[in-house]
């Protein structure tokens, strides 16, 4: 039997090649979040004048958001690709090889992680070019890349789960707006303690996406904030574990091979 790392490497390589050869899939996760970042940092600049706003640069404040937006785009792309494999029979072809189920999943997710880290490098580079200074320094940037990889595992596994359950790319694209709702009812544009509307503050406080964003934000504008880091890594780890378990279960259901 082929060694597990070889199987994972082969499938991850395919996943990356697919993305690289589809500019229509590869570019939106890079461009749209940055475009929104630039729009928001221009339009919402006045927010920094609110008493208690943690920074005088809205760009630095909002730089956290593309990390999560990009992860959401990647979730959709990864899920759509896997669903297409199921629909076209490519998944059956893979099932006929000695490849292990765990390698199928790990290969897919490894590809997403590599792309997630590359996206993070792009967002960090954009931030640095636009004059954002990372409060946590180079070590914070390195930690940010690790965090991006962890978030990519969670969202990648979530996309894989949806693909394996539905087997339909259209269904996954239909779920995308639902995932985006979580982003919009988070602390993406305003610190939670400055949200004036009670119900919105409540929703943002129970929304795990807020903590994913605040973890990145803390490294950019605060420095080493143990609580924000613990909450962010905790939520990302929990998401990764739950999504991986769900995806493994769905894979078992989808792989009917004896």
């Amino acid at each position, binding site marked *: 039997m082929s060694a597990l790392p070889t199987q994972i490497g082969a499938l991850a390589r395919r996943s990356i090649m697919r993305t690289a*050869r*589809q500019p229509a899939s590869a570019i939106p996760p890079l461009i749209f979040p940055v475009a929104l970042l630039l729009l928001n940092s221009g339009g919402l600049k006045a927010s920094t004048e609110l008493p208690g706003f943690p920074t005088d640069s809205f760009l630095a404040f909002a730089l956290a958001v593309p990390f999560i937006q990009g992860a959401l785009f990647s979730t959709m792309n990864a899920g759509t690709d896997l669903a297409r494999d199921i629909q076209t029979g490519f998944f059956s072809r893979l099932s006929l090889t000695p490849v292990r189920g765990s390698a199928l999943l790990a290969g897919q997710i490894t590809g997403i992680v590599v792309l997630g880290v590359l996206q993070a490098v792009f967002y960090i580079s954009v931030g640095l070019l636009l004059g954002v200074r990372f409060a946590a320094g180079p070590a914070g940037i390195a930690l940010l890349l690790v965090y991006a990889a962890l978030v990519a595992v969670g969202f990648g596994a979530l996309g894989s789960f949806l693909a394996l359950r539905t087997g339909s790319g259209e269904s996954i694209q239909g779920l995308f707006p639902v995932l985006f709702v979580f982003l919009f009812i988070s602390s993406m544009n305003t610190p939670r303690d400055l949200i004036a509307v009670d119900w919105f503050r409540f929703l943002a406080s129970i929304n795990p996406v807020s903590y994913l964003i605040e973890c990145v934000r803390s490294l950019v504008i605060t420095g080493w904030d143990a609580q924000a880091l613990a909450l962010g890594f905790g939520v990302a780890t929990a998401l990764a574990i739950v999504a991986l378990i769900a995806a493994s279960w769905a894979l078992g259901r989808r792989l009917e091979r004896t």
Partner: protein
Amino acid sequence: MAPTNSIVVEQLVREFKKGPRAVDGIDLSVTPGEIYGFLGPNGAGKSTTVLMLTTLLPPTAGTARVGGFDVRKEGPKVRSVIGAALQEAALDPLLTGRDHLRLQTMLQAIPKAERKPRQTELLDRVGLTDAADRKVGGYSGGMKRRLDLALALVHRPSILFLDEPTTGLDPQSRTALWAEVSRLAREDGVTVFLTTQYLEEADVLADRVGIIDHGKIVAEGTPTALKAEIGRPSIHVIPCREEDRPRILSLLTRFGEQLGDDRDLAVRLRDGIGLADVIRAMDAEGVVVDDVELRAPTLDDVFLAKTGRTLEGAASGEDGAPVR
């Protein structure tokens, strides 16, 4: 221990929830190096059988041994001895032919040093060397099918499953694929289990044919033996004038039983009756026709004799055959 038969199936059944019994207790046996043609219309149960024999779908009941291994209990061992090109070439349009072969050689655990030579050998074998570095999305249907075949051969399987390998191909691509499949069986001793809805394909390629309809095998044997079972030739007439149709039909049915429906002026001749007898009768009664043709029995005649329908009619769903 080498298996005496490459594929042995006994009372194999597959039922789908809220669906029909797609495969309904079939028995079949395929010997090593044989090309077995599994012929039937859409929805007859061909692909479901292939999915079970390739371990991708567990049987509801019955047993099947492929390469000596039980498909239900020894899935990984079965997969190690089989190659399969399933219905519709399952390829990634964004990868090149070579990318596909690279992925397949890695997943099939081909030793690293042998991967590139194997890729080159297979690309050459299926005539895709020049197109190897082009994305598959730009391949023709025939090229996709040939790549599909190459991928199925990466690990040198002793048994090959081909599910409707030439559906949708032009005649030239179809003939080229037949030649390659034939060569695999004759020269390399590969056992081939081939599903098809093309009579000609089964006739030309298969050593033996199993005809499946509504999940049951209704006939099995060599194409020659099956046609001989029908035995008698048929006569097909095209009238000069439409209004002569009932009169000609009445005349023809004196010499044999009618084939098809009233639109077809065709009869299967009774024993001892020849074309000359029919022509003489037409002359005597002053019947004028455009064309008279004497046809030797075909596999379609076998299908008709066994099911009461033509394969073409069954494929178009006239009989309400389940379509998967």
